[in-house]
């Protein structure tokens, strides 16, 4: 029993069929719990008022925007090294989700930034890097769409993903050099986050627990969507192959 068994599309679809309802239900439960808890049952911040509650969307979405790219990077590597088609399709399936997460992160950030910083947008390193990440997602998806041959497209996009990752990292540090920012550093996982001791430097435990739940919800949501989209891609490809076989017969 090894993980590569799931590189078999049939096995993958069968497993995904079993997993999908559970993951979806778990995602919905976590999201609803996290968001409702966060929006209605946490106190308002003494300085930020109710706007602090956008954190339950903003932080998980931003986290998933980066993690989706990481997942695409790993899937691309697997495709290049072991040439499992499911892997390439999973990378393809993850891209639009990651792009959407990036947009959610940017938009909620703008809505949060308006009352807090007095501006919708600032050329702050984190904001800028997310915008660049969004451009990378766009280019990646456009390349998938543009190439007709499936294997060629998978090869080219996976190399683009590798090169893009290096350049995204480069851009991250270049942008930090270019402008010091307005955005705060991460205050979610600071000292005391694990032990639960409340300190002033980190997000208060009152906000942290719903944030954690909603973060898990976003991860599960991403997982469910990737499974679903990968299944769709596999089935679409199979139906195309069947049609082609029928035509030639």
């Amino acid at each position, binding site marked *: 029993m090894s993980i590569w068994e799931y590189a078999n599309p049939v096995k993958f679809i069968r497993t995904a069929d079993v997993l999908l309802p559970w993951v979806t239900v778990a995602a919905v439960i976590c999201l609803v719990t996290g968001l409702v808890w966060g929006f209605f049952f946490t106190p308002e911040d003494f300085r930020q008022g109710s706007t602090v509650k956008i954190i339950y969307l903003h932080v998980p979405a931003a986290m998933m925007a980066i993690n989706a790219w990481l997942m695409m990077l790993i899937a691309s590597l697997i495709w290049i090294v072991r040439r499992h088609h499911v892997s390439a399709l999973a990378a393809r399936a993850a891209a639009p989700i990651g792009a959407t997460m990036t947009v959610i992160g940017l938009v909620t950030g703008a809505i949060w930034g308006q009352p807090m910083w007095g501006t919708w947008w600032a050329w702050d390193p984190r904001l800028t890097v997310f915008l660049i990440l969004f*451009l*990378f997602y766009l280019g990646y998806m*456009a390349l998938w769409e543009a190439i007709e041959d499936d294997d*060629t497209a998978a*090869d080219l996009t996976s190399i683009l993903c590798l*090169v893009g990752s290096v350049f995204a990292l*480069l*851009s991250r540090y270049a942008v930090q*050099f270019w402008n010091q920012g307005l955005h705060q550093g991460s205050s979610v996982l600071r000292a005391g986050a694990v032990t639960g001791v409340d300190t002033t430097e980190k997000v208060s435990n009152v906000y942290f627990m719903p944030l954690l739940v909603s973060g898990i919800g976003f991860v599960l949501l991403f997982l469910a969507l990737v499974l679903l989209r990968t299944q769709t891609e596999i089935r679409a490809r199979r139906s195309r192959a069947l049609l082609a076989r029928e035509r030639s017969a």
Partner: protein
Amino acid sequence: MIALLTRDLRLAVRAGGGFGLGLAFFLIVTVLVPFGVGPQTGLLTRIAPGILWIGALLACLLSLDRIFALDWEDGSLDLLATAPLPMEGIVSVKALAHWITTGLPLVLAAPALGVLLNLAGPGYLWLFVSLALGTPALSVIGTFGAALTVGLKRGGLLMSLLVLPLYVPTLIFGAEVARRGAEGLAVQTPLLMLAGISFGVAALLPFASAAVLRINLR
């Protein structure tokens, strides 16, 4: 390799277009900027380094699809692929030829266009240096983009979408050198970073471009 380089250079010069077009585009962008932002010399002085860098970058981008497109159409790219020269070498030579025909003229013309934008005194030297260091990186990264989109119809627009995000680090450090130079600040750090990007990209990216080209020729 030298034969390939001279062939590419000769084609670029004799077939017309490639050589002058990028320069003309650079000139036009520079001329258009004051129309857009107004003729105040103070403002122009401040934005001149950035505008000149962006102009050079766009002019570079404009000529990228010529790197492989013609060779792809008439089949000479397939011949090159079967030649004893490794693909990485071909890609590097192509990038070099692109730099000589596009990047180098831009570097030489940029100080002259700086006059139009009222660039500050010490800025000329640093603009020249930063472009001379940075445009090779633009050519090499662009070759990667051109290799990705070589077989595609309407590949030009897609290539811009793919290449422009990759240009971000080069642009940041290049424009920073030019800006700091023009303002009389120390330029060492961004200059070193720019050089690092140029050399790093020239050393590593041809492997990716070659892999991509091999896939496209399959």
